[in-house]
């Protein structure tokens, strides 16, 4: 049984249909990447998973249990197991880095402050941001905010981590750091679904790549297959361009 099963989901913003029946599975401990041109709906897939954009058709299962996005109880349960790192980080501007990371563990999980803060410092250390624990988001660079956002998501102790373009704002050195962190998490058995334009990163870290275009899955295969010998014309075209570029 897959850890996360996405079965033909549809979604729209207002009257604009964005997802037209997306399906793929993520096994426990597996890292799956969503790739595709800008505007193809990758972020929207992650948003539907955590119930921020309503699903208008199809269904999502976590560990075989389907999530009812109309029931707030079910959505809470889903959010309890999945944590998302947003493309735009969305750190709380009114809180320090440490405040951002400890907010949910303290207020939602009701854990003790000292314990949570010690753990938060470890997580910040993991992403190389411990020295900025008391800075505010508007005093950080994009890449620094990105790493804090990752620490904040990890502090939720999720089973499934959803990462949206986590390397887009990072310089090559930091990409490696984040890559390390992701690899370590994968080794620890964390299930991950990530969106990325960084093909080298995708190839290195993921066991399956889902190629999307215009709200549809065009092809899903292991990276070696999809990068070097894709079945579809569209994928060949896309990867031909991005890999050469």
């Amino acid at each position, binding site marked *: 049984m897959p850890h996360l099963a996405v079965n033909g989901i549809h979604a729209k913003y207002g009257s604009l249909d964005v997802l037209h029946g997306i399906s793929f599975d993520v096994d426990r401990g597996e890292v799956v990447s969503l790739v595709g041109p800008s505007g193809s709906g990758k972020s929207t897939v992650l948003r539907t998973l*955590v*119930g*921020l954009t309503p699903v208008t058709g199809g269904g999502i299962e976590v560990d075989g249990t389907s999530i009812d996005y109309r029931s707030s109880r079910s959505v*809470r349960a889903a*959010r*309890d197991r999945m*944590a*998302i790192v*947003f493309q*735009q980080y*969305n*750190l*709380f*501007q*009114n*809180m320090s880095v440490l405040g951002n990371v400890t*907010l*949910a563990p303290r*207020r*939602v999980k009701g854990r003790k402050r000292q314990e949570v803060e010690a753990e938060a410092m470890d997580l910040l250390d993991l992403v190389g941001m411990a020295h900025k624990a008391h800075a*505010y988001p*508007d*005093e950080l660079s994009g890449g620094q905010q990105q790493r804090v956002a990752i620490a904040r998501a990890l502090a*939720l102790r999720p089973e499934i981590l959803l990462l949206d373009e986590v390397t887009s704002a990072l310089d090559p050195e930091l990409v490696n750091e984040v890559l390390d962190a992701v690899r370590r998490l994968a080794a620890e058995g964390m299930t991950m679904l990530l969106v990325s334009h960084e093909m080298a990163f995708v190839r290195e870290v993921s066991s399956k790549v889902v190629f999307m275009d215009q709200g549809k899955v065009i092809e899903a295969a292991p990276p070696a297959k999809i990068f070097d010998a894709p079945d579809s014309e569209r994928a060949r075209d896309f990867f031909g361009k991005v890999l050469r570029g």
Partner: protein
Amino acid sequence: MERILSQMPEFFSAKNLVLLAQSAGLTLSMTLMGCLIGFGLALVLVYLRTTPGLWALPLRVTCIAYVEVFRRIPFLVVIYLVLFFIQTIATDVSLFTIAVISICIYAIAYTADIIRGGIDSVPYTQIEAAQAMNLSRLQTMYLCVLPQAWPVIVPPAIAFAVSFIKDTALVSQIGVFELTFRGKELNNQGYSGALVFGTIALCYFAMSFPLSMLGQHLEKRLATPRGKRNPR
């Protein structure tokens, strides 16, 4: 003119000055109390207004209607309505309480709009981030949204309260011993109208002007982003 000059020493006697100071204090304290309580209730109102779901529709409509209706009724009419309504249900409510309740009712309607504007100024993505972490609606509001909305809310809310110091003059009509009432009383005692109401006007000015300056200063200060302010 001669009359004014000849009345001056007597008018500015210690006794009258103390009375005036007391009345000014009353004016200030009822404005402050009414606006503070009103502001608190307006926060609740705005929060209720954001309740999602179909079942909460009547609640949302009531909140919107409250703001729309009370902004369109003269404060004087509100005072009379509160006065007579309270007198039919209870007998021993002080006039000061009635004044504070009237101010409160009015302040809710005005500050609710200010608060809503502040909340709308916080990017929706902040709320989404909080939701995705399972923070409750209330927690999202007081932990993430309101702290970011204060700089937008506080200056106009203070400006409202300061300008309302003047509007409380109407409360004199039901006999609260505030500045305007004291003025009419002194006028009835035979003091020159020019002397009395000129002095009363100056008293209001002395309260309103510095406070409004303070409000503007605060607005400028809060408008500077955190990074540019003094280091913590």
